[in-house]
């Protein structure tokens, strides 16, 4: 569920961060980072898929927490 970012595909545009309606993603352009889920807020992901829909380079996939599988 919280997204996983592929560092080889990500072009660090930040669109996923802007489009996340839960505001749970961060990307520090100064540090030349790829985006990450802010750990403290990872439960606030609605798995809406907006981060992937926004991504121009197909860098986003999803992992589902254990509690969604039981």
């Amino acid at each position, binding site marked *: 569920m919280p997204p996983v970012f592929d560092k080889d595909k990500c072009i660090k545009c930040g669109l996923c961060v802007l489009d996340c*309606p839960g505001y749970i993603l961060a990307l520090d352009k100064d540090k030349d980072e790829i985006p990450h889920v802010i750990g403290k807020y990872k439960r606030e992901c609605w798995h*809406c898929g907006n981060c992937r829909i926004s991504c121009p380079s197909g860098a986003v996939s999803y992992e589902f927490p254990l509690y969604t599988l039981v």
Partner: protein
Amino acid sequence: MQVTEKTWGKLIEVDVLIMGTGAAGMGAALRAAGLGADVLMAGKGRLESSGCLGGGNDHYMCVLNTDAPFDTRQDFIEFYLKSTLGYTPGMLGEWFDALEPCLRILEEVGTEFRKNPDGSYYRSVGFGQPGAWWLHIANGQSIKRALAKKIRKAGVSVLDHFQITRLYRDGDRFSGCVGFNVLTGEVSAIRCRTGVMALGFQAVRATNNSTHNPYNVWFSPYNTGSYFVLPFDIGAAVMNVDIYNRATLLPKGWGAPGMNGINNMGGHELNALGERFMGKYDPMMENGKRRNQVAGTVQEQVEGNGPPFYMDMRHFKPEDADYLQNVLMPADKATYGDYRQARGIDFKKAPLEVEVSELSLAGFLHTDDRLETPVRGLYAACNFNTFSGSMSGGYASGRYAAETAHEAPMGQLDEADILAEKARILGPMQVGAQGAMSYDEFEEPIRQVMDYYAKFRRNMPGMELALDKLALIETYENRVRAENLHDLMRTHEAFELLQMCRLHLLACLQRRETGRGMYHLADYPALDPKLGKALVMRKVDNEVRYGWGVLPD
């Protein structure tokens, strides 16, 4: 639109202010801009992705006025008039008249509706409706962005990332709002001639599903009741916040919709004993009223006939099962395909385990036939349910907001009020660490109360006790500390959730019957035909007043 920098933030002046950037806000913006109005949309998320439509929708309800059975304006109006929802023929006419123009807009921006070989729309029946009113959408994930592009091109101003925290009135007229940018913390005040309220008719996070993660839910968890709490505070009336609460079935453990497609294509619900039981609860079985499916499943669970519960699609033609799981469901929830893969779900091979979802709170705002609330110049856009209802409600209210803005005066906001609200907004950032609590620590007990006293099975003394416990939680508001702007946003959502739960309980305590809402009352277990009316609630002189089918004085 005009923007003035003030010492406390920005003062924005616009003719038509649309609050909310979901399907309803979008319908309103397109209509008002089409009529040449000066329009600003303000919303907490980003226009391209916010609200329930952000990750997709797979069905659009549309009565097309053709020769097909039950496909006319009259059929549509008759169906919705039968309910206790409090609609008038005039309101329903507004909804109906907007259906087709909204369908055209959706097609124009590239929405792919499934067609029959003869080119007509493929349609199916659902929700106990008499006709085949549901059009199927294959590319639901792209609708929000495509509409956003059209709106930005139409010259509508958009204030993204803006959380509205308070509304204002000037005499009997709506005058504007105050809120803050959730990324920068900047406070702005917006004054306007007319406003469209489009903040979403569902308040989520009030109760839990089996996963106890309030964000792992069916509807957008970032809505906690602004559509009701904010207008109620300035004297607008809320309606049906007792019986219009919502629930559905979810894939077990995962907050995704999908029952529209599963039910209306003919899925069978089974209990743990392998029985298809829905015939006991609705003459149309799984494809009847969603309330009956939820209530039926809860009843089976109480009797011990489940869990587990399943939706069985193994009898589908293989191409239908594939269409449902590969096309419709991912169009409804953009991550469905990933979940399906993670779980190894295949409708052709095994039934899908499901659970009863969280219960979210909902209702309407009281309006006249032109969707104007008792606060003049404030129009309600989210009073009709479903995607088409929201977009149509927006489309209709956008028209009246634009037309009235010609004669309406510019709303006045009092600077002292703005400063007081700014202090309230930023207050949680100033709370010291000593004895402080996080927004989660404040919000969890609200769900604890609602889950325990006010879920699918309840009674009057329990709900009264729940109100007392919410009052206790409220006394902790000044201890909630926001360490950053994300926390601040959630803190205000949590404060609103508490007020929303209170409105719901107050309304439920008035309705002494069972059978119209999603819940069962042990002390009033039967339907009371005399209560077949909408319950209207309004604050007058700081006191809550109630009216059955009428606006209380």
